[in-house]
């Protein structure tokens, strides 16, 4: 279990969703919200408490892009690659971020500070191109503004990715 997590959290999530139909994905969202990813121990414990075989949990986790199986690091940088952002230069932003951080999309920096990923539209297409850093949405991003943000990512962002 992640150092910040406790059995109690998993128990609370399991209790909330156990007897609701079709709730497995909701419970897994609960875990990811709590830990930033779905730790294996938490998934096992959830499975036991909700009477769902671990194989079924992983079948679901691996199908959906949104779920992460590894800790993503402190700052999750998501470059939107929806059509509107694509047309407004998202591919160039992605290469820039990749270069700046020294990692490919889907990877985390060695110091655990940054995770880079691609998302398919966050619904802010009118202000394309869009990048999110954790819960903070950056609009009309340019190479320069992105770089500035990667240098000082902590301003005004809390919450989870």
């Amino acid at each position, binding site marked *: 279990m992640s150092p910040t997590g406790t059995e109690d959290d998993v128990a609370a999530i399991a209790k909330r969703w156990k007897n609701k139909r*079709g709730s497995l*994905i909701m419970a897994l969202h609960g875990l990811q919200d709590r830990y930033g990813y779905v730790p294996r121990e938490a998934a096992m414990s959830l499975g036991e408490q909700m009477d769902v075989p671990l194989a079924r949990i992983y079948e679901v986790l691996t199908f959906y892009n949104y779920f992460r199986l590894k800790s993503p690091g402190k700052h999750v940088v998501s470059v939107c690659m929806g*059509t509107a952002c694509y*047309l407004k230069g998202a591919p160039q932003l992605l290469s820039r971020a990749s270069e700046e951080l020294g990692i490919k999309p889907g990877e985390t920096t060695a110091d655990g500070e940054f995770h880079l990923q691609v998302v398919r*539209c966050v*619904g802010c*297409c009118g*202000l394309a191109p869009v990048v999110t850093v954790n*819960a903070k949405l950056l609009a009309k991003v340019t190479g320069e503004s992105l770089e500035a943000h990667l240098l000082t990512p902590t301003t005004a962002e809390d919450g989870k990715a």
Partner: protein
Amino acid sequence: MARLTVADLEARAPAEAQVSDQPKIKVGMSTCGMAAGAEPVFVALEAELRRRSVEWRVARTGCAGMCSMEPLVEVTLPGQPAVMFGDVTPEFARHLAAACAAGKPLPVEKRVPGIADLARIAGEPVATEGGPRQYRIVMRNCGVIDPEEIDEYLDRGGYKALARVLSTMTPEQVIEELKVSGLRGRGGAGFPAWLKWSLTRESAGEEHLIVCNGDEGDPGAYMDRSVLEGDPHAVLEGMIIGGYVIGAKSGFFYIRAEYPLAIQRIEKALRQARASGLLGNNILGTDFSFNVEIRLGAGAFVCGEETALIASVEGKRGTPSPRPPYPSVKGLWGQPTMINNVESLANLTQIVLRGGEWFSGIGMGKSTGTKVFAVTGKVKHAGLVEIPMGMTLREVVEGICGGSASGSPIKAVQTGGPSGGLIPARELDTPITYEHLQKLGSYMGSGGMIVMDETDDLVELSRFYLGFCVDESCGKCAPCRIGGTQMLRLLDRIAAGKGNEGDIATIRRLAHAMQKASLCGLGQGAPNPVLSALRYFEPEFRGRLTSSGN
């Protein structure tokens, strides 16, 4: 909040009747507004008013559709028309608040067209002939009310449609009204809503269920997000009416996880509705009981497809299954299930209140009512527009959205997202109806409208769309899985200048096979962007072939 009854709602006077002697200040606080910096603007307005010891409330509102001008602040002085300010900075906000507090005239800078300049609103009088081009039924409250205050929704006639349905209409009468309205599904396919409602109602099962499809998978479109964020109760009210009509006791909102604010607003709307007796047992004091829960997507485009969506709501992998049986016969947990798109449901209250005939009077031919589009890409004013069907593409792209942003001429418009198609600039005078768009090889889709100018490379764009579908293919059926990958390889080759004559013919053959043999709409629709690019822009592909002398 006390539980409401039918009589309470009938007696409620509209907000227009309430006069206020205070200025009304509203800030657009939907996802786009927040991204553009609405929060610091809101804080600055409040702080400046407080500093001047004025106790006016600064209100939050949803997306008015003018996304490229966010942050937006609307100020209405007593007895005067509303004035909208765009690109507002915290500094300007302080200046604005100071002027209001001092009773001085409002600044002349940063003024942009207001909602009343852009759109007529369903049920409100129109000022003049030749007035605004937009017509808002679905977005009638977006950017107008505070979506987190149920009272503001009630003040705009909210839940009156539900009260009318529960107290005076049989399910059959609602279906009849829908039939007269001609409303067709706004999620893409355009299936007649009344028929789906009636089929689900008539299917036998242990229980009936209703699902609101808020997956909004088309990347580059965000109509549904804006409605969920800007007027959550309208969607919920439509859903409760749907539940009554088909005889359901439970309903589900399926919303993509990438829309945290929409989820939060729907959660809040559900809590408020429960507390007000609009949801739960004995709604509005009648014997109708209905509950709604939320289920979240998890980043899979295919889950917008209705059979995959059902699997996902059940908590499983989102793999589609063959139809028939249709969800209306066998859906969630094997029971008759009605799946409606967000925008489809958001039309319901107005159809009930104003009548099916009123609705069918808007639009063109078999495409009645309005459609919301997210117009993005290379236009000057990217944003959301709601237009009566039958308006031409040109009027939307050039008239409402200001045409090309760069000065480079518009080359094409794409509608329908990854299953849709390109429409070349020479066809821009086509009216927007289900039939006309289909004739051009595209389709209505859920409302994405992406504008490209002459600098955009359509071979690359075809690769982009197909690449999206290949990534998102669930892999269950071979035509989609293998056909898509093969076609993408050919496109890669052409884009790299290594393709030959035969490749284009092979692409067409593969496309045909995918359209005919794929299990679900993802694979069936995936070749469309490529085919339509070939249909109108084949020379661009040919120019890249090795034999063309490059």
